[in-house]
């Protein structure tokens, strides 16, 4: 039991299960899964689907935080990728009621992802070459990025009419949402990269002990650049999922405050903000906790005006549950009691 509770993923996972059970108590239909039209439906699938963009962003954020950085521009990068993809896909009704896209879909998606990766690279350059503090360096793009997205759209919400584009955010594959497959695929790729490649070894070495990595001859600069670029790319992927899901791109609101949710997800997952030990799986669980929280608030039927307060209280409770120091208050008291009885 003790070994179990010591495992890094135990408390995040316990929190998630607790939240799911809480929902199940108030809403017995919460755990039902139905198979319809070859798709799996149910509140749990919904949560997985809706959490996908946050999972993807949190994966990128995990690596950045692991190498002792931070990226608060991911929300803006989501907006940029969404806008670029929507503008290039667009779509117009032809005479026969057929819809065609502005550019081939792969060009639109590829350009959007490239733009997102370029944003990440920019952040990385500011941190590595200009020596800026990560939070300041990415603050620049956080502000400017949304501005760029607004410039691109001329302040309008861009609506997409080309149906193949919708598959990313609302399509299904083998019965499960495609967005979920994307998040799972990215996780699998990252897992392999981290455990099997030189890049992964260096990222983990720098995260674990930057000074030791330097003494061992690992050059941190290219690794840090890679990590920030990947974080931008991940935000871009999330941007595609989000804009595809709502069939439009809103430069003002796409990915709004996503950076904070991502940081929260990483923290909930047991990765220290100071870097070092990190857990990809933990961040995935963290993203699921956040989405489940949101769903819980809706399903418990709170009026909309108290949503934020309830969310804050729940996050507070979750963070307390996850805090080793807070739990120690009770175990110490418990063991003191046990000692007194002897």
């Amino acid at each position: 039991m003790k070994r179990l509770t010591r495992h890094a993923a135990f408390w995040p996972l316990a929190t998630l299960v607790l939240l799911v059970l809480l929902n199940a108590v108030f809403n017995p239909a919460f755990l039902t899964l139905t198979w319809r039209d070859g798709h799996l439906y149910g509140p749990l699938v919904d949560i997985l689907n809706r959490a996908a963009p946050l999972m993807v962003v949190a994966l990128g954020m995990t690596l950045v935080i692991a190498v002792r950085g931070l990226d608060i521009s991911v929300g803006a990068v989501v907006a940029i990728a969404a806008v670029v993809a929507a503008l290039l896909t667009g779509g117009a009704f032809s005479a026969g009621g057929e819809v065609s896209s502005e550019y081939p879909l792969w060009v639109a998606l590829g350009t959007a992802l490239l733009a997102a990766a370029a944003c990440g690279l920019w952040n990385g350059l500011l941190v590595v070459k200009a020596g800026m503090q990560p939070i300041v360096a990415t603050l620049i793009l956080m502000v400017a990025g949304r501005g760029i997205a607004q410039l691109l759209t001329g302040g309008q919400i861009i609506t997409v009419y080309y149906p193949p584009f919708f598959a990313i955010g609302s399509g299904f594959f083998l019965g499960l949402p495609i967005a979920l497959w994307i998040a799972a695929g990215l996780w699998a790729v990252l897992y392999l990269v981290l455990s099997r490649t030189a890049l992964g070894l260096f990222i983990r070495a720098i995260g674990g002990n930057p000074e030791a990595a330097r003494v061992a001859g690992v050059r941190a600069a290219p690794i840090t650049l890679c990590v920030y670029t990947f974080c931008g790319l991940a935000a871009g992927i999330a941007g595609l999922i989000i804009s595809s899901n709502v069939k439009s791109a809103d430069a003002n609101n796409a990915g709004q405050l996503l950076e904070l949710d991502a940081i929260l997800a990483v923290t909930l997952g047991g990765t220290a903000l100071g870097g070092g030990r990190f857990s990809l799986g933990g961040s995935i669980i963290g993203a699921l906790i956040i989405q489940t929280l949101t769903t819980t608030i809706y399903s418990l039927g709170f009026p909309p005006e108290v949503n934020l307060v309830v969310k804050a209280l729940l996050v507070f409770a979750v963070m307390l549950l996850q805090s080793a120091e807070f739990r120690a208050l009770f175990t110490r008291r418990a063991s003191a009691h046990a000692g007194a009885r002897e």
Partner: protein
Amino acid sequence: MSTAAIVLQARDISRAFPGVQALAGAGLTLRAGEVHALMGQNGAGKSTLIKVLTGVYAPDAGSIELLGQPIAPKSPLHAQQLGISAVHQESHLLPNLSVAENICAGRYPRLPWTRGGGIDWRATHKRAKDLLAGLGLDIDVDQLAGGLPAALQQLAAVARAVAGDARVLILDEPTSSLDAGEVRALFELIRRLRDQGVAILFVTHFLDQVYEICDRITVLRNGRLVGEYACAKLDAHGLVGAMVGRELAGATQPATQTPTGDAAPAVLSASNLSRRGQLKPLDFTIRAGETLGLAGLLGSGRTELARLLFALDARDSGDIEIDGKKAQLAQPADALRLGLGFCPEDRKHSGIVADLSVRENIALALQARMGLRKFLTLAQQRELAEKLVAALGIKTPGIEAPIGQLSGGNQQKAIIARWLATHPRVLILDEPTRGIDVAAKQELMNEIRELASGGTAVLFISSEIEEVVRVSDRILVLRDRAKAGELPRGADEDAVYSLIASA
């Protein structure tokens, strides 16, 4: 001199930390108008004793008397109020305050309440100015402290320390980052304070400075008081002997000898290697298959030399040649590429990556040299790790165990294995035997000898002279951040001590 009034007397001070008896009956007597040196090797208990005197630690046993009255400083502030002030290695002025504000910090003159009761800036300015003038220091008190050169900050810090009418001034390695001219200015200030009757405790690693400024020396060893000596009656040999705990066989050893008949080609040679405040210009060569020992007291520049060689710190001057070709060494990655390896002194902080497995820790340097594109497969890493774990006899539950779970000696071996995997031309071992048990130490020493016989040149650094003598083919002795001399194979410990002491 012995007639001078005793200001502070500490007797039989003991203090233990978990697993370490830092002080076991240490003592010290400071007299008014004298400069007193506190000497001892690393771990002798100097810092702990200072911290007891300044109230950082409470002693487990023993007594402290100030002017005949027993005292028990509870905090550095309390000690200061009693009249015991300390200035540490790096001055602790607040860089964004002016010199005057720094000097009066914590005891600002106040305006009368009729005028608001605020800080009287005019009086602050004047008080600081008068104090500095009284000490013969020409420092603009309105300048920001952060804008002053390090040496002037140090002087201002001393001034601040005595501003509250200190009876005892403790200077903890105040000269370690100062150059010769700056040291002179500091000494002038010290003498002035001494003549005003302040009892001064001076801690340093530089023997020549001890003899330049001190009247008496107290030597500690392993937390115990070895003795108090008048400087005039204890020469450098005697002092080093007292510090390391053995009699020295006079200064009859030849000071410098160049090994003869050694035909092996030089793998690495450095000329004019220096870094300001850390190492004075120095030349040396390492030959293939040779173990070059680096001996010297703490602070003599051993680790600094190794760090410059491995490009962990930037050198101010000097060329490094590897195999006769001038080497471009700007960062550790360059050193790695050129065939250097470095096992750092601080294993936890700059050696191991505790969360990574033994396998990954061993593969790290080799992979770093191979770059990002070509990578060692899992199977290759396993083979490499298994081979080295067996070869070095690393005791681990398995190669996948996090290295942080291993004992110190086995961690050290794994770091050596990391470098062996890169087949280095030159391997630098900085205190490889520190903090590991005797058996592991012996094994490591054997490994080092074996390495050298395989053609790898080894630069062996240790504060235990006896170890250096045992494994080295040649010994480079450092003193006060400069080369004191070189000794050939067969030189004994006394010869090393003689060189260290030949100030």
